């Protein structure tokens, strides 16, 4: 068989194995996932730890 035809057939097989369109999950960002932990402090006033 012609080398060119073999090469084209292999390439065709490789291409067919790839998904053509991205999945729906990839196309639409996950809008609900904005959960965030916020730690906060204020007026620490130079305290490292209490006196022992």
């Amino acid at each position: 068989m012609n080398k060119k035809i073999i090469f084209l057939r292999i390439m065709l097989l490789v291409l067919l194995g790839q998904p053509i369109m991205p999945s729906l999950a990839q196309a639409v960002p996950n809008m609900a996932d904005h959960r965030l932990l916020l730690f906060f402090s204020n007026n620490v006033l130079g305290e490292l730890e209490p006196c022992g």
Partner: protein
Amino acid sequence: MGGLPKKAYQIKTITADQKKPALILDSGNLLFKQTTVSEPQELIKASGIMDIYQHLSYDAVAVGSQDLAAGLGFLQDAEKKGFPWLSANILDTAKKPLFKPSIVIKRAELAIGIIALTNPAAPVPPGITVAGWQNALSGQLAVLEKTCDLIVVLSNLSDQDNADLMRDYPQVHLLLSTSRDQGNIQPRVVNNTLITQTYSQGKYLGMLDIDWHPRRPWAKDFAQENLLLHDRLSVLDRQILRAERSNTPSGTVAAKLQEFRLERQTLLEKIEVLKQQIALSENKKETSSSFQHSFIALKRELPDDPEIADRVRKIKDRINNHNQESVTTNPQQNQKNLPEKDSKPKGYSGFIRCGECHAPQTEFWKATGHAQAYQTLVQQRQNFNLDCLPCHVTHAGKSAKAGMPKIKENLVGLDPVLQRVGCESCHGPGFGHVADPGHVRTQTKVEEKVCLTCHTEDHSSGFDYKTQNPKVSCPAS
């Protein structure tokens, strides 16, 4: 309670357990108790705190007015090393901000804009200009509201300014404040803004678990209001019942009954309106942003993060060594500043003189913790730490004279007989009594307020005078 090692443990553990992105913020007044710095050890401690905050990856820290106590350069040096100081209204002579006014942080797939405001009304060292907050905030919001999903203000402003801010700037979603008088502020939504803060001195760690939906306001919490209305209703019902059962009908009782019934009717109408609001808010839940909150009390029994505990230990060692060296390398200079040549502060005699006439009492005292108070500091290598010393020696900071540097007052030449919580700590200076016991009396009964000078909630949590006083009360003569 409190302390950075406990705070670090909580942040690390919760973040690891919950596997959610975290943001760590501080709204300022981090470094100093006062608006001026009187001792070098305060600078050592402040530098150490900034190192620890950086190690914990704090995202932003507002410059509070008290953070300026050591001058701009002190904060700017830390900023150059990557410390995340923010202030939108500390300006140079050309009216440009001296610190980053705001930052945008990408987290949880959100662009979070953080702005910091310093209190323009609070005293600051000369040469520093803290401008009005409104212009600074408007300028920052004009940029951030176009690009950010969530806008946070770290506010060092007064309560009135915070109220004005929430009224006039609904673009601000979250306000973290620094009001000294208010302690932990339960998060509440005012207009469009959620406001909260923690108690001072690092006793609590505030935490918000936020489910944020851009362009959807916070859900209003009607449940609390509903509870309050029902509480009042049950009180009124009892009062009405009591008045109706009253066997002595009089004009006053009848008038009161009428008053109760009217209030009850108004209350029922309010409850009905609230019911409708609750039903509506249930439907709106899907379209609102929401949060859960907690104030984690950093109690003594909570674990420490070992790495931060080690850093804190090293800072305290540095403080102790610095003070010890300053005493031993400059003894003459320090002696010159002493109020008297006597090694005891004015008016004090020491427990040995007391024991000459009050032997049984002195022997009893020797077996109490008060007699060992200084030794506990020696064991912890903190016997030169001015934060701790005042309550571990006789007299010290409790009677320190204004203008007398604490280090000289407490450390230099303090007679070893006063290096303990001696008789005169509770009964007052005894020099006059020793000289003329017939005429000069000391305070025999020790009132609670004397104990509370040192046994504060901060340093002696849960101290109870009635149970503790008998343990140190000397036997009668």
